[in-house]
């Protein structure tokens, strides 16, 4: 079997993305979603029900009395908190797999995923962009999911990738492509396909390093994920593997009319939001 075939086989072996979460996301996509309908979707999964109640009763919210009904918790948390909790819960399980090849600092990939999703949210809000929040958050959160699979295969090639990056000419993703013939974004796209995600998310994951290659209808989404990834890396979130050897898409800053000062404001808003998200998701910020 060629390396690519082996990796595709591994993609096929990946656990499915939880159906309950996908269905809940579809329900939440409608701004006038029905609480009863959402509760019906969620209640079949005991672990998810428990995590929603746990979050609602956590010190973070400091409610005066204990909430014990799922319905009440869903109403109290609201769409944004629920979305974050459900998606990050599902994604954290996928990213938790040990990454032998990429010798990652513990859970560095996961922190980077979360940081990119938070950055995307902050970008969307601060620039008042008309783009679906669910789709953007999901694509940003999962943009590097290809690294999870790839990491199990690159152990012996990893040194070659690293050397090429050290030379200073290639970004990490370019080095992957030169050494392996494909990169983590290609693999990420395949995983998203297997999970039967919408084409928008598949595209954004597959082209987050080369947004100009995305089909026109998904270009804006892909650009936002690319830019959020750039900014999260710049700030230093989750760069254990490849350092800051990531190609910047400066044109996207121009396109969104983000000035130097605008970028500083974004970073500030991001950091405040990230601290909150880490608390909710139970992740160490550092």
């Amino acid at each position, binding site marked *: 079997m060629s390396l690519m075939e082996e990796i595709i086989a591994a993609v096929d072996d990946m656990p499915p993305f939880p159906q309950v979460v996908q269905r809940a996301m579809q329900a939440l996509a409608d701004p006038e979603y029905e609480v009863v309908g959402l509760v019906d979707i969620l209640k079949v999964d005991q672990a998810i029900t428990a995590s929603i109640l746990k979050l609602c009763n956590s010190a973070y919210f400091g409610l005066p009395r204990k909430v014990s009904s799922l319905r009440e918790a869903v109403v109290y948390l609201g769409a944004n908190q629920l979305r974050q909790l459900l998606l990050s819960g599902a994604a954290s399980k996928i990213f938790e797999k040990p990454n032998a090849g990429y010798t990652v600092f513990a859970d560095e990939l996961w922190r980077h995923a979360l940081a990119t999703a938070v950055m995307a949210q902050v970008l969307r809000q601060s620039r008042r962009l008309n783009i679906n929040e669910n789709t953007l958050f999901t694509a940003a959160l999962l943009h590097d999911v290809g690294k999870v699979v790839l990491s199990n295969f690159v152990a012996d090639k990893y040194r070659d990738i*690293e050397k090429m*990056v*050290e030379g*200073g000419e290639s*970004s990490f993703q370019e080095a992957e492509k030169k050494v392996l013939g494909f990169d983590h974004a290609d693999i990420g796209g395949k995983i998203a396909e297997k999970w039967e995600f919408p084409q928008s998310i598949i595209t954004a994951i597959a082209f987050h390093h080369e947004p100009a290659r995305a089909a026109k209808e998904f270009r804006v989404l892909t650009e936002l994920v690319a830019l959020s990834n*750039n*900014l999260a*890396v*710049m*700030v*230093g*979130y*989750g*760069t*254990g*593997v*490849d*350092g*800051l*050897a*990531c*190609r*910047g898409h*400066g044109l996207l*800053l*121009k396109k969104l009319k983000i000035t*130097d*000062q605008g*970028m*500083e*404001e974004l*970073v*500030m808003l991001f*950091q*405040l939001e990230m601290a909150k998200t880490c608390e909710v998701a139970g992740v160490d*910020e*550092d």
Partner: protein
Amino acid sequence: MALVTVGIADLKVSKDPEDTLVTYSLGACIGLAVYDPVVKVGGLLHYMLPDSSINKEKAATHPAMFANKGIPLLFKQCYSLGADKQRLIIKVAGASQIMDNAGAFNIGKRNYAILRKMFWKNNIRIAGEDIGGNVNRTMYMEIRDGKINLKVSKKGMIEL
């Protein structure tokens, strides 16, 4: 030995010889370490942005996020533990950048520029630094002797 984490947009000072201060994930951010070898007092700051004028309110609640607020605060807190300005040994790391020929993602550069400017004005000398590049850094300070170790992606451990 206690490992004391300095978060992002955070600072810590100590005079406990058992302490190691550490800050992770320095990208465009800067880690600034100051140490007085006589009283063995040290402090470490991890700031993200050059100037707090973008938001006065956050400057008050999150001073360590900004160079112009965090740096004076770091020095003050070290003085309050008995450190003396003339004896302070200053080391700096960070200000990395992503690969971007146009230099649009330049917060790292500006983070470093403001530090140089503030130090120049106040006649403060930098004893050691590891700045720039496409790397990420973790910075450790031993309170016992002020030793600064850096873990740098692609390079491994180096002493500053």
